[in-house]
């Protein structure tokens, strides 16, 4: 249960901070780097807790995080 709350908290915090930056590009990019990194860590933590952590899963979270990061930082 705590995993779900942690992810929800992470998403809400990220979106709130983005709103607080007045949509400044530079801040949003920094926030997105932090958000994607924490999401990757969250994925590892969640699967470790469920005892289902596997290198394939870690790689999947890493690629998903990279995709999310690139989708935002590539907007000039």
């Amino acid at each position, binding site marked *: 249960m705590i995993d779900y709350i942690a*992810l*929800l908290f992470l*998403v809400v915090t*990220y*979106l709130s901070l*983005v*709103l607080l930056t007045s*949509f*400044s*590009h530079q801040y*949003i990019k920094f926030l*997105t780097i932090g*958000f994607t990194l924490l*999401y990757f860590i*969250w*994925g590892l933590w*969640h*699967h470790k807790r469920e005892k*289902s952590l*596997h290198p*394939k*899963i870690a*790689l*999947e*979270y890493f*690629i*998903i*995080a*990279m*995709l*999310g990061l*690139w*989708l*935002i930082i*590539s*907007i*000039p």
Partner: protein
Amino acid sequence: MLSTTYRLFVPHHKNNHKPKILHTNSLLTLLGVLIMAQSVISMLSVLQPKILGFATNIDPEKIIILTNNQRLQNDQKSLTTSNKLNQAALAKASDMFASNYWSHASPSGTEPWYFISQADYQYKHAGENLARDFENSAEVVSAWMASPTHKKNILDSRFENIGVAVVNGTINGKETTLVVQMFGSSSSEQTSILGSSEFVSKAYATQDISNNLNTAISSFTMSKIISLSFIILLLVTLSLDWFFVFRKKLVRISGKSWAHTTFFIAILVVAIIIKHGIVL
């Protein structure tokens, strides 16, 4: 065709119970395609600025018209264009590019009023609004009106004259379009390009000018469209995967689709609200 689509988006035995798009190889391919697409956009914006670029449809006269529209809507007299303030605004914009700064005061401490005085405008009251990276005149004025301090300048009853400069250049290595708007009131000011009655009628008649401009698509808009397309593709696939995994009660070695979906919803929200221009 249907079978391929099914294999791409729906988990079943032919794709090892995971949509093909969500396989590691496919995700890496998507990342590669995304990086390549954005690189092409960046190159095009530099090599072919007429196709994609930082060049915008911001026009000083339209900024003035739209500013006066706002004043008229708020029961303020429209401002007359001052060549001296236009010169001051141009000098300020040129100085920002030359000294590489984005601020009301230069790194050496030069205030906006210096440029106004240098243009031989003897001011009683003066004000300055700045904007950068917008795509058209309406966006600039809307952003200023959304900011209390800039709005105060636009609607200030003490101001009688206005000057605007729009200049393209590079600040901190980034190609950008700067908009400098200067306001002033002076008893000695005589220069106005248009008479005020002419300005009033023109201002009303051209409310939507900026919306009808035939613009080349900017690199910002193009990148945003590509990013949104990728996010929506991933969200659709993840949602379908989530639904079928839940319905079929599949057990597999994989990340959680609901978590990825939540992650990309946050990314989608940010990609939608991210704005290009900033005001100061």
